């Protein structure tokens, strides 16, 4: 019997490897897409920030002559270039220049600002920015920070004139310490990204193999020839199931490998921050993740096979399998943004949720044995039911000849 299961398994694998769609989903997307998604976005963002930092933003100071010391001080820092405009300048025209990106900030200093300052009264200063552009909002933040520093200098001077210490203004001396280890940071990043892709790729990776093995064979009429051979239906399903599992598992492993290499090695190197991210996985954790992943891939493969053979055509099967993909994608997307760990034990009995939770906890080094056991039992039961469903579909004449 095993020889026949193996024959079906190997034939499906050979057929899949020769199918460009499977290769694209199984190899190309995980290997190319993950580095692109993980590396290109952050690197481009950092490059943009660096470029913004290199180009000094221009601030137009309207009424600079009302407080010449302020404009001079800001200019002396070199963080902002100051363009002086006389009081009463056309602010609307300046706002147009701001929205066109010619200047990044407009600051209005009122008349009598110097007198107010001398009288130790607050000087109202108006700042106009265009927060729709990063350069303008960065210039606004920069100006506020510079104004704060300038204000602190003024206050220090005033306190010194009165013979008082600046410590009067700082009753607390704050000392902050972050205990996050590099491993925790890397683990958290992987915990956010990898479980999502594991559950999605458990469906996507073997999708074309599953559709081809059921609806595809039906459409080509080769399924009828196959079931006319002296091989029990369960053995045919087992061979096909193993093939879908192999392809999907290979895709998931490639994906995890690709995501890990991108996140832990490529990204830090490209950002010039080697050793910034690392992850600390235990042997037990890895084993738990591997077992969970394998059972989940099996569950998805069996479900896809059942849906595929139930379908009248390749196209119908694609619709059903896409529905399955969305069904696993939504909880995965939700959990991607939820940070808490240690959900109630019953949640580990819910397929999909349990895979996401276990994988995430493995990366965060917080996985527990009872949770893993509940997950494995739940997935094994679901897999058994899905496999039985696939065998029923393959051996039921109404389903088989539903064309």
């Amino acid at each position, binding site marked *: 019997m095993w020889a026949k299961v193996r024959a079906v398994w190997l034939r499906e694998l050979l057929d899949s490897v020769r199918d460009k769609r499977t290769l694209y989903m199984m190899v190309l997307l995980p290997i190319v897409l993950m580095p692109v998604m993980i590396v290109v976005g952050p690197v481009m963002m950092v490059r943009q920030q660096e470029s913004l930092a290199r180009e000094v933003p221009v601030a137009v100071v309207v009424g600079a002559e009302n407080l010449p010391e302020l404009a001079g001080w800001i200019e002396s820092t070199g963080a902002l270039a100051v363009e002086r405009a006389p009081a009463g300048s056309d602010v609307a025209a300046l706002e147009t220049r701001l929205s066109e990106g010619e200047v990044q900030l407009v600051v209005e200093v009122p008349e009598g600002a110097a007198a107010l300052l001398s009288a130790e009264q607050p000087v109202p200063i108006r700042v106009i920015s265009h927060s729709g552009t990063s350069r303008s909002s960065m210039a606004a933040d920069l100006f506020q920070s510079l104004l704060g520093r300038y204000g602190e200098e003024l206050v220090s001077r005033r306190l010194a004139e009165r013979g008082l210490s600046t410590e009067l203004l700082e009753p607390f001396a704050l000392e902050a310490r972050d205990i996050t280890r590099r491993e925790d940071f890397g683990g958290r990043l992987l915990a956010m990204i990898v479980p999502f892709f594991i559950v999605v790729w458990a469906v996507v990776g073997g999708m074309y193999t599953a559709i081809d093995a059921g609806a595809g064979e039906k459409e080509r009429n080769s399924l009828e020839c196959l079931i006319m051979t*002296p091989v029990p239906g369960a053995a045919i399903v087992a061979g096909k199931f193993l093939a879908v599992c192999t392809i999907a598992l290979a895709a998931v492993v490639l994906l995890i490998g690709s995501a890990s290499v991108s996140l832990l090695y490529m990204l830090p190197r490209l950002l010039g921050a080697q050793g910034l991210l690392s992850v600390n996985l235990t042997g037990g954790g890895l084993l738990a993740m591997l077992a969970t992943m394998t059972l989940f891939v099996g569950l998805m493969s069996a479900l896809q096979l059942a849906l595929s053979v139930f379908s009248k055509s390749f196209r119908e099967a694609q619709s059903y399998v896409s529905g399955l993909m969305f069904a696993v994608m939504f909880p995965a997307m939700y959990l991607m943004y939820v940070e808490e760990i240690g959900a109630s034990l019953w949640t580990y009995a819910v397929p999909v949720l349990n895979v996401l939770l276990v994988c995430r906890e493995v990366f965060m080094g917080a996985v527990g044995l009872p949770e893993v056991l509940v997950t494995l039992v739940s997935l094994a039961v679901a897999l058994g039911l899905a496999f039985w469903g696939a065998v029923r579909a393959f051996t039921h004449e109404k389903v088989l000849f539903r064309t």
Partner: protein
Amino acid sequence: MIEVRGLEKAYGARLVVRGISFDVKPGEVVGLLGPNGAGKTTTLRVLATTLRPTRGTVMVAGFDVVKDPLKVRANVCVLPTDPGLYGRLTAAENLRYFGHLCGLGGPELERRIDELLEWLGLTAAKHQRAEEFSKGMRQKLALARAVLHNPPVLILDEPTAGLDVLASRAVINFIRESKKAGRSVLFSSHYLLEADRVCDRVAIIVGGEICAFGTPRDVCAAVGAATLEDAFAHWVELRGNGADRRVG
């Protein structure tokens, strides 16, 4: 080798095959002739164990199709209307796959593959993918696949449909050689001249019922027809196709 007694097959409330009985002896070729929707393919599928009979008994090569479907499959070669090959696999790979499923393997299987490909004139296409084959080549390859395990019973569903003259001739020759080899051959066809030439006996099936069963000469004589085509037309006009008949 094939024994059908009171076979009925219904899809839900629709009765497609209505209590038919016939037999095919070793070394005999029997043609199942009927218009579209007459129940030919359904009958052949029951014999091939892909459909379960609703009533009646069907024995193929001494085994009951309901009780021993795997043994029936091991003793029967089925050629459906569509060859149903794996396009991305080569001719040899297609045959090797089905050989393994039939329990063959090793040098014996390779020798059999070479033998069949040579016999059907496909040796040059041995390593060519089936998706590149012409319809005739595909049908020949399907034939090779069907007889790979050398079964005593052949069931062919419209084996010459859509084939050119040369490919049709190859199939007809194959049926004749199978008869000489002592195999029981049951095939369905629309081509009455072809059936007249090849079959020892024919069964005319209309509306799921067998109207006439015997040698072509007897079938013609029974209704006073000059040709098998006339006899066929007589029964189809008399009975209609009976597609609207219901169970009970």
